[in-house]
């Protein structure tokens, strides 16, 4: 059978296109089953990097971190009051997580809802299953958000160690980054789930904000010791100093992983059953 390119001879401006050579024959092994998933993931990763929300998020994080660090260094220089790196980082993380949640929620909630309609036609009408598409989108957003968060976190850790009175334990610092990353993973996972369920991007963002901030408030009213975002953030100064039990870390990461995988399962199941 002739290749499609050898059939197509669409002229433009009335001039017939040149005859096309046959592309090399395919032979066996021309299909890779995970390539569609990888293509969506890769495309989504770069789509996030080029989006204005992502750039705004990075800008806010860098500006807040730099400003806060300069303030703490300034206080020490002027008053001589010792500024502990663990306190600085814990405060910084608490505030930036709250701001980050708002922007990361926008990024996550627009992942699938933003591509509804004719743009989704051009992807989902090809040789990709809804499961692969969902997983590609979910992992693409997770990768871009978590990689950025970890990179910025490591820069923050290094800067705090260099400019403030270091009382940070290396393992504690990494554990604190892990906790905050786990919380962001929950935000991203819930965001992608909501995005797969709600057609309109703005509605998806609004629902996710209500879910996150409302859910966070509800969880913080539960008895002490119940894993909640508030509780996890309060543990950060101790974690940064290395004063934490591995069990606590396991609980936070375990809950986050459970919620993330659960929400992905719900989102994926719903998404595979709905009309595009």
């Amino acid at each position: 059978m002739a290749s499609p390119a050898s059939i197509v001879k669409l002229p433009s401006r009335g001039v017939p296109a040149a005859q096309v050579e046959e592309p090399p024959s395919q032979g066996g092994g021309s299909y890779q089953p995970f390539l569609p998933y990888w293509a969506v993931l890769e495309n989504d990763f770069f789509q996030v990097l080029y989006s204005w929300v992502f750039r705004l998020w990075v800008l806010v994080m860098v500006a807040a971190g730099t400003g806060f660090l300069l303030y703490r260094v300034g206080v020490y220089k002027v008053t001589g009051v010792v500024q502990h790196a663990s306190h600085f980082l814990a405060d910084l993380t608490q505030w930036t997580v709250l701001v980050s949640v708002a922007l990361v929620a926008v990024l996550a909630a627009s992942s699938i809802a933003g591509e509804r309609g004719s743009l989704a036609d051009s992807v989902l009408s090809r040789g990709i299953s809804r499961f692969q598409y969902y997983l590609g989108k979910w992992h693409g957003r997770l990768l871009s958000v978590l990689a950025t968060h970890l990179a910025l976190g490591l820069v923050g850790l290094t800067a705090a160690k260099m400019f403030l009175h270091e009382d940070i334990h290396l393992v504690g610092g990494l554990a604190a980054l892990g906790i905050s990353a786990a919380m962001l993973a929950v935000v991203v996972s819930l965001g992608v789930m909501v995005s797969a369920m709600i057609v309109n991007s703005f509605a998806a963002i609004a629902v996710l904000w209500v879910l996150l901030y409302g859910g966070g408030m509800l969880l913080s009213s539960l008895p002490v010791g119940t894993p909640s975002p508030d509780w996890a953030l309060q543990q950060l100064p101790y974690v940064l100093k290395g004063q934490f039990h591995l069990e606590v870390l396991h609980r936070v990461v375990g809950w986050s992983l459970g919620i993330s995988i659960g929400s992905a399962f719900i989102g994926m199941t719903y998404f595979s059953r709905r009309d595009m």
Partner: protein
Amino acid sequence: MAETASEDLVVETTQLTKIYQNRQIALNDVTLKLERGCVLGLLGSNGAGKTTLLRLVIGLHHPTAGSVKVFGRPMGANTADLRRRIGYIPTNPRFPRGMTPITYLDYMAKLFGLTRNVRKPRLASLIRAVDLLGASASPISTFSSGMTARLAVATSLINDPDLLIWDEPTHGLDPEARRSMLDLIKNLSKQKTLIVSSHNLGDIDEVCNHAAVLSNGHLIYSGPLQDLKGRMRRNHYELDFEGEQKTIARALQAIKTIGEVKYTSLQHRRLTVQLQDDAVAAPVLAQVLAAVHEAKVGLVGVRSVGQQTEEAYLDLVEKEEQRGFTRIYRQAA
């Protein structure tokens, strides 16, 4: 199209029904069979259910009731292996911002799971074939409608599909690009099965050998295009003249005296002649032409109007609407 074993069918829908959110009946009890090698023209007015049917066939929509089989297997949202054998062009194809034809086709080829050694040469050949070589580095957002149509064609062929589903491929194209598109469909029809949806009945008439007519979500005809035309009343002709109106009127008087001529109507220099239903056309037309010759009227053209797809389509839709509540019962094919 009905007497074929299920495994030989490219597309088979059985009592396919789609109701959106219990509010809108988009498709109603559509049973359609498409054999290998067919070029099916999907006809219907706006909102008749053409796009819904195509989206159900491609697996973008779930049927409310009934089933869709493609290549003998049920089509669904996760049957990616079936979609790997289909090339689809939506009505108004949209493309991601910032991509060039190369990056876009590469992305689409990856979505079909094509390895680098297959997709790179193929996308290069297709870009060249659709004459986008000069624009291969330009963002798609800067493309004209003709260029995006050509890119959509290349995209639908990147996986070398067995079945092509093109939803209004000539929509928004200038006459030159439309002609190219129709020529392409003719070429592709030699090797592939095609479903082409269009408002332009002339396009369907030119490239399709089968037709399916949808009216308000209901399939009112499916079968060979010739059979659809054959349903129309025959013996209906138009003659175009040149010369003085006085001599044309003289010819008209002579034509009216021919016994088998049932009806005549003259508008400027165009004469409509309808023969008796049981009349044999050739001898009567010979008498008509003889009368024209004797009146010394210049004859510019003669054509049969009853055999046009447009006439047949409109007649079919009109008859369906006239059936009223008897639509409850299936009409014999």
